[in-house]
Each structure stands twice: as C-alpha cells, then as structure tokens.
C-alpha cells in the first residue's frame, strides 16, 4: 500500500477493530483526515478517557467508574436477585425491558470448549462466592440462547442447586410477531417446554 506512514498506521490500527476490514479502515481513515481537527481530537480523547476511567465493578464485573458499578451502588435494587449475563452490553438489553430490579453478574463470555474457553476462564467462581456471601435467593441465567450459552446455563445450574439457591433460565421461544408455521422445531420445542398457565 502506498500511503505515507502516518496514514498507513491509522489504517492498520482501525482494521484491527471488530467487523472492520481493510476497505472500511481506509474509508474511516480518510474520513478522519477530512473532518475538522477538533472533532478528530475529541474522538481520540474519548478513547483515552474511556480506557483510563472505566474499570470493572469488583462485585459484578460490569463496567464501572470506581469500585462498584451504578447498579451495585443503587440501594433500591434487590441484591438477593441476580441476573447472570455474558457481557456488559447484555445488561443494557435487560435494563431496556424495565422488568428487572435486581443486580447483575457478568461472566465475561460463555463456555466454548472449541475456542478453548472452559468454566475457569469465566467469572463463575466469583458468582458462587457472591451466592455464599450476599445471601442471594435467586439466580436468573440470561446467557444467549445458543449452544454455548445453554451449556453455560446447565453448568451453572449443576453448581447452584446444591447451594440451595433457586436457579432460573430466561424462557426462549417464538419471537413476538412471528408465525407458528415458520418456527423451527428447536425453538418451538423450547417454547412448549417453557409454556405458562393462562
């Protein structure tokens, strides 16, 4: 590639971002060179500030700006009800429902043996520790409804049951607005299994 070194470096750094290929990286680089200097600087500052000031909550491993995250510091939330998610962005999705008033626990991914990720690579020991220390009554496992998330949920259930804590799994089933006729047997099978009384 025939760019001057600073542009080549920028393209290279941008192409390391998830979902950004060589072509997109070039387009972004040229865009950044075209916009006013202060806009570009503000982006650079935002990256540095986020990296320097954002930490992980020592209790739930969500993003935080200090020892604890906003949810863990909120005294109106129920600390005996914990929703387990794979990543911090999943918290945002659960919060948008407005249905949940407990705390969270971020595992940092899901068990995926084929990628070399076993239970030890996730914050599972820390979750069990919380259950013992914080008097947790119920754990809602909200890992993704795909094979790795399901396996993680089963693994957690096996560990949690002997501790006498209630472990529940978010229901999975038919998408709202969908059509029964087009549902696959795995999804429909799960929807039947998780049926509710009317």
């Amino acid at each position, binding site marked *: 590639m025939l760019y001057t070194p600073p542009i080549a470096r920028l393209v290279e750094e941008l192409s390391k971002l998830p*979902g950004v290929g060589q072509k997109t990286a070039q387009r972004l680089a040229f865009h950044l060179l075209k916009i006013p200097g202060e806009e570009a600087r503000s982006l650079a500052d935002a990256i540095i500030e986020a990296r320097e000031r954002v930490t992980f909550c020592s209790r739930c491993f969500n993003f935080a700006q200090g020892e604890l995250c906003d949810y863990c510091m909120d005294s109106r939330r129920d600390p005996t009800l914990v929703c387990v998610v794979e990543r911090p962005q999943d918290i945002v999705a659960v919060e948008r429902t407005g249905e949940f008033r407990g705390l969270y626990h971020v595992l940092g991914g899901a*068990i995926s*043996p*084929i*990628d*070399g*990720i*076993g*239970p*030890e690579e996730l914050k599972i020991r820390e979750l069990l520790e919380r259950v013992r220390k914080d008097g947790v009554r119920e754990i809602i496992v909200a890992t993704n*409804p*795909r*094979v790795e998330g*399901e*396996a993680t949920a*089963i*693994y957690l259930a*096996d560990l949690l049951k002997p501790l006498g804590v209630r472990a529940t799994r978010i229901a999975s089933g038919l*998408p709202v*607005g*969908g059509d029964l006729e*087009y*549902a*696959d*047997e*795995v*999804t429909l*099978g*799960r929807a039947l299994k998780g049926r509710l009384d009317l």
Partner: protein
Amino acid sequence: MATYKEEAIVLRAYDLGEADRILSLITAGRGLRRAVAKGIKRTRSKFGGRLEPFTRLHAVLHEGRNLDTVVQAEIVRSHAPLRADFAKFLFGEAMLEMIEKSLHEDQNIPRLFDALCVTLDILEGDVEDPALLLAAFELKVCALIGYHPRLDRCLHCGRKIEGERVCMDLCGGGIACDSCSSSLESRLAVSPENLSLMRSLLNEDMATIAKRGESHRASRDALVTAFRFSESFLDRPLKTRQVVLHYLDSR
C-alpha cells in the same frame, strides 16, 4: 455458481458482523464446507435454531468463491439432548473439533460423516463414560484419515507386544517396545492396562464402548493417549482438550 443439496452436521458457528454467522459444516458428499448464514442473529431469521452446532440437517447451499451461502435448512436430527447435559455437550464439542481439524477444506472422506452421525446418536442416549467414547472416536478418526494406530507390534523391531510397558511413538503412529523406544524423540509411556484399553477402543464398535465402564484413572489415561496420538497428525492443537481434562480433574 451452482446450488446444491447436502446432508450436513454443523460443527461450529462463528459470528460475522452484526447479523450473520459463518458455519463450519461436514457434509455427506462434499466434506468440510464453510457457509454463511445471512441474518441468522436477527430474532426473526428464517433459520431460527436450525443451524446450531450438533444439528444434522438437509441443507440447500449456494456455492460461492470463498464461502457458500445457506439457502434453506431442514432439521434431520437436532441432537437436543447434547445441549441439555454439560458432559455430553463438552465431549460432543471435542468430537466436532476433531472432525473440523482432521479435514482440509473440500476434502471428503465420506465415512467420517457417517462416524460422526453414529457417535452423536450414541452420545445422545445412555453412555456409561463419555470420556471413553471420545477417546475411541479420536482413534477411529485417525484410522479413517489414514493414520491407523498400530498397537499390536513394535513399529521398529516388529516384535508382538503383550502385557509389557511400552511407549507410544508419536511420530511413527504406533507403539515401540522398551528397547526400541529409548532413541525416540516424541514418545509417551503407556502402561499394559492402558494399551489393552486402547486396543479395545480402536476395535470395538461405538455401541459397545458406550456400555463400557473403567476407573476414572484408566479412562483419563486412555483419553490423554488418544489426544496426544491424534494431535501428532493434526496441524493444529485441539483446543477442547484442556477444557475436557480440566473437567475430568474437577470431578
């Protein structure tokens, strides 16, 4: 480019961008294929849960230059019990990885597809010790891809081995007697009990192995030997191996 129909098993699914996923498939007639499932991560995707790992399906695929595209998928067997039991899932994933890593893209060994179908069906049911099933699977896959483990005679002097301590010659693909193994670079000590179990795992059919029970130690030793043996023929290490052994040690 052409559209084709194949029976396939989903080995693995990688995320691609916001909504798509790349699937690694073993097909009955065309070996290992990679195909993109467009829009699968959207809640309203027509594929729904049809393209999860372990699923055996009738698929219609459109051939592409680098990647095929999944056009249609119907489930033959969802293998749901493999996702409802952690040990079955873990040992099953190790089998999927073994298949993925023993084939090059487009390379076709039809019996490999059949072996995986049979083994996953058995794993789904009552299995005394899934670790033994996995060890047997690894050895049998080695045999199918052309590295039949030679466990009867010493690879070097040809002497028949019975009830003695030997070494696995990891480069040679078999065993070496005590005197021949001293000069070997890559070897693994094998006890007489372990060797005898390995022979059974190689020769017995999967349904018989599913009913076998051994001590925890014997079954772990067999699995480690099978892992080491198969890894010596694969270009890439098996990532599931550490997770599997960790799990066995935590029991």
